[in-house]
């Protein structure tokens, strides 16, 4: 394990999107430290840069400037191939919806993530335990369209952690779910965090969802503020 207990260290992170003639400053000097094993909720108004932060952390986009160290890796020095490796091994993504490949069964959606990461053979014990937490045994051979939104999200979470990533990034994983399904998903995340020590970053708009996390940070105008902004 690296010396620092922080699995994520973000310093003065900036991201500028060029849209036609206009520069959109999505991130304006964000700083963030996340200790290993933490379940962190990220909240903030629409357009404040939450998804942009996750895309950069997850290697889907390159930062404009600033430094990021994830699980001991400096992301600034990464090439496209390096970012592909990062997505394969270091991070797992869960999005708001349509996470699954519609043509594959739930089980195969999980398996393909393993095959992309060149893992084969029987699933490891810890993952079998994690699958039990899903409570989906009987439905794993269904195609996504035969699963409810909550079931789909739980499969997506299983797929995101199957390669044992250091960090799970969930961008509004319950944004599309009713309360009951939402609770099932949030409970699953909390259990994964507590039982296998999975580090989780979760974006949410819902204060109740944020309650499931150990800590909540707020984003505003492309920056991270610890406390909710006072009006």
């Amino acid at each position: 394990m690296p010396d620092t207990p922080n699995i994520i260290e973000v310093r003065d992170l900036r991201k500028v999107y060029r849209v036609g003639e206009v520069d959109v400053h999505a991130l304006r000097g964000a700083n963030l430290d996340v200790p290993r094993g933490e379940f962190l909720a990220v909240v903030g108004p629409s357009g404040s840069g939450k998804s942009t932060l996750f895309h950069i952390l997850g290697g889907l986009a390159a930062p404009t400037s600033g430094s990021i160290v994830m699980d001991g890796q400096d992301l600034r020095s990464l090439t496209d191939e390096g970012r592909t490796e990062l997505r394969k091994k270091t991070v797992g993504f869960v999005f708001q919806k349509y996470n699954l490949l519609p043509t594959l069964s739930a089980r195969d959606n999980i398996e393909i993530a393993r095959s992309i990461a060149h893992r084969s053979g029987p699933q490891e014990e810890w993952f079998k335990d994690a699958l039990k937490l899903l409570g989906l045994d009987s439905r794993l051979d269904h195609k996504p369209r035969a699963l409810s939104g909550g079931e789909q999200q739980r499969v997506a979470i299983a797929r995101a952690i199957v390669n044992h990533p250091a960090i799970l990034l969930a961008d509004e994983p319950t944004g599309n779910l009713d309360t009951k399904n939402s609770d099932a998903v949030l409970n699953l995340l909390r259990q994964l965090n507590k039982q296998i020590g999975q580090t989780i970053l979760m974006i949410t708009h819902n204060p109740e969802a944020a309650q499931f996390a150990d800590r909540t940070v707020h984003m505003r105008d492309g920056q991270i503020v610890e406390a909710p902004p006072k009006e």
Partner: protein
Amino acid sequence: MINKLVIENLKHRPVRTFLSMVAIGIEVTMVLTLVGLSYGMLEESARRARGVGADIIIRPPGSSALTLSNAPMPEKLLEYFGKLPHVKIVTGTVVHPLVFPESVTGIDLATFSSMSGGFNYLSGGPFQAADDLIVDEHYARQGKLKVGQQIKLINRTWRVCGIVESGKLARLFVQLPVLQELESNQGKLSQIYLQADNETETQSIIAGLKGTPALKEYGIYSTSELVSMFSVNNLPGLKAFIWVIIGLGIVIGFLVVFLSMYTAVLERTREIGVLKAIGASPSYILNILLRETAVLAFFGSIVGIGLSFVSRWLIMTLVPASLQQKVMPEWWLICMGISLVGALLGTLYPAWKAATQDAIDALAYD
């Protein structure tokens, strides 16, 4: 696992998959049918040329091995050839072209029969009257002709007197003098056939003929020489035609697969984004699409090979006399290659688009 995804993707859109395969199949059938026709018709010509039973064929000055000439040869030549050493039988014919590829051939039934071994009459019999016509089985089938029936050819009404097994020189036969008179070409022949008393004498007879100054301009061929000219390699036009067909096949395959894969990629924008989010590299995405294409091309080719038998059956049933399609297993692999090349070319752009598309754009919700 990647293969499973490929198969599931193809099964997910069964209509598109089916239509793509059928379209590739039609492309393959087109190639197989046109190539099969080229070879089939050449082989049929060769077979019928051999069926005459001649060892040597003589054509008038100015004609090539495969084309006819309007400058016929005098009938008196028959007598001259007949007296040459080792020449056993001599017969002459006149050919009157009809609508391509049909023609009427005037024969001297007695000498023609003794050279070729005689017609095998499936019904009817030899010529009796001047306007009698012998047809082969395929022409009879195509024209739904029966013995005794009248048909009009070259501004004249003929009576079908016999239907014979095919394979001897031509499909339509009338008596030589009748056709000569019709053409106002009395005493002239367009081809002369010689049979040697022993096949091994063929070359010496030909040498003797070629050494005769009066025959200098004449086309003198052994049957085996003539038959070997009925090959694609000897016909630059046909060779070019086959290359054009292959090119067309590739273009059709390209267009079909381009459209099919292009829509597939547009439709799967989000899935491709998801795959990238779980760590799939651009080459992995490329790999998926290329494999899907290869499956389409492979099964499309099999559909096409099957369809080529349908086209052959149709041709044999509807126009057996005009067209012959050969079954060419050696072209099956070539056609798979053609469809694969076209298909892979067609996937390149859609696959490149998919492999390089921005994952974040793909993952954005509309």
